[in-house]
């Protein structure tokens, strides 16, 4: 029962490595290093990254930016709640707000155009979760995240909330329509 007893010799710190262990450690180390370098590699050569662009803000300031965009670019209203659908110019800054319990406003984007999508919360934390492609990000009040996106397939996308935010969390929903030019 020697894992329950002191090592069988006083000096064990220089025991030679067993062959099985040595081989395995070498293989595992190579794999570990590979996985490590995969991340910086993908930042350089991969297409799906979040490079960390973000700003400090406040709900009031952020909300004003959202409203300004809504006023300038609303193309129609949807649902019984008259939720504005905003079609910002290609390449522009787009402001999306998470709040209890909606994603505001709905967006209409052009396929294969690049947008700077800003996301922030006006109250509690929320979870930006874009379906069906399942892209997720944490939305934190007081911080404005900028995700530069290039929607490459047209269709109707849904934003759900996947950070618990109270009783009606499950009704928190928004839309991004990606349309062909």
């Amino acid at each position: 029962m020697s894992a329950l007893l002191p090592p069988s010799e006083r000096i064990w710190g220089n025991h030679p490595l067993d062959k099985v262990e040595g081989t395995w450690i070498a293989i595992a180390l190579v794999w570990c290093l590979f996985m490590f370098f995969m991340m910086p590699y993908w930042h350089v050569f991969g297409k799906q990254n979040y490079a960390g662009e973000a700003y400090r803000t406040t709900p009031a300031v952020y909300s004003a930016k959202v409203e300004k965009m809504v006023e300038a670019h609303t193309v129609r209203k949807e649902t019984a709640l008259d939720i504005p659908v905003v079609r910002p110019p290609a390449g522009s800054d787009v402001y999306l707000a998470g709040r209890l319990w909606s994603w505001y406003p709905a967006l209409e984007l052009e396929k294969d155009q690049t947008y700077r999508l800003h996301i922030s919360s006006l109250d509690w934390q929320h979870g930006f979760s874009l379906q069906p492609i399942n892209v997720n990000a944490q939305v934190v009040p007081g911080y404005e995240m900028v995700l530069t996106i290039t929607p490459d397939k047209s269709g109707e996308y849904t934003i759900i909330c996947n950070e618990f935010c109270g009783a009606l969390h499950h009704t928190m929903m928004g839309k991004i329509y990606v349309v062909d030019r």
Partner: protein
Amino acid sequence: MSELFRTCPRSGLVFHKAAESLIKFNAVTAVVFLAVGGVLGLLVVMTRWPAVHLLSADLFYQVLTGHGIIMLLVWIIFFEMAVLYFCSSTLLRCRLATPRFAWLGYVLMLGGAAITGVAILQGGSSVMMTSYVPMPAAPHFYLGLILFAVGALIGCFVFLGTLVVAKNERTYEGSIPLVTFGALTACIIAIFTIASGAIILIPTFLWSVGYISNIDPLMYRVIWWAMGHSSQQINVAAHVSVWYAIAAIVFGARPMSERVSRGAFLLYILFLQLASAHHILVDPGVGTEWKIFNTSYAMYLAVLASMVHGLTVPGSIEVAQREKGYTNGMFEWLRKAPWGNPVFSGMFISLVGFGFLGGITGVVMGTEQINLIIHNTIYVPGHFHPTVVLGTTLAFMALCYFLVPVLFRRELFLPGLAKWQTYLFGGGTALMSLFMMGAGTLGVARRHWDMAFSGAPFSFEFGGAAYMMMGLTGIFGVISVIGGAAFVIVIVGTILLGKKIEDKSEYSTARPAVLPMAPPAPANTGTGFIAPGTFALAVVFLATFVVYYFLNWMYLSSVWPMK
């Protein structure tokens, strides 16, 4: 002051009376909380099962908060206190340092758990165990957690104190046993965990009573997870120690190499806690270098350590079995293992489940970019149930099947049920988790009452596959709960109704004999691998890992380009 010790004639373990009572109380309290958490788990999973959808939304979130806290904190940490006292006092044949403080720690933990429990029951604190600000909970929700943590910290210091006493009073020869060393690793991680908890929960408590006007939510997340994730690393260190202990208890296995196993624990001490960054990978602002360095435990060195333990634990069993003559082929040692002994089967399912399901998925989802397609989906609980339920909980259950009869001097109650329990619980949990992961890959959210989004202004429907997976999650979740209930029945039955073992094991004031060093290992005469079967299994593991890793990169590369 004369200390009372007894030697257990069946196991040869030497119990210090004060430590023995503390081990019993902490372990039994833990099991009681496991039972409560299990009932809550049943309610949770029956609500996430779309065809059943048991609870209302409010009640679901309340119950889920309770399930998370009771399972992850209360059950596990109470049991870990028992493990710490066992690995210090009992294994070192040493009196426990300051038993009164240990009792104070116990009372604080119990009181703290009760206070937080009341806060959750009152309904104003359904904030999930993470209690992300600025969503408020009642002040006593945080206060209870703080008291609980202080109690656990006292337990850690009692453990360290006992190591000092054992060294000064020379109760053992040479270095401390490997299992005690693993417990030391857990204790060190626990101290960092609790310190981080204090840094964030005390201000949050003050915020909730109005003394502080604002807690930065991003700061909260980073520091809260220094506690929240590190506490999982306590569990890893603790259950790996339990694996080594059980390999020794059941097979008389000795570590393949003290240097390698302890070196691997050292890597845990240095790097494991950095992985708290797993939770911050898609947070705004925190830089890429910080994310990559921390999420990878500084180049995956702690993953390397786990891969080493994953080899050396079964490897040491293989060596021990081969010495007993099970030498045919690659796997006779494994086929002829005592599969009907729940101490072994629980430990082995824990090892395999933790490695294949918990470990691989954890590393994959902890890859910075891959986290984009996994964060906060139900894949996340699908990943951590294999770690914390299969890995930690099942390993602790297996240890209980050995320790409870020894401590309470009673035969196991319903041994036939115990024999099946590990398979039922392990299999149910494994399949539940797999289906949660499947559903998460399809986008189903965690902590979410209704995957049909009833009442939302727009509509969105998950496909049939997602519903089917959540249905299967429900079915296997119920099986898992039945397996958990079987454990509680066996353990509580043993304590209350088990046949008394009439052995001569009286307490005496005589100082126990010094713990001797292990007998020397026989010289390794062969030239080949001493554990070829284990090595083959390890290669299968690596292959699974590699395939699954690249599958996820492929999946990631199919979504919208973004930077």
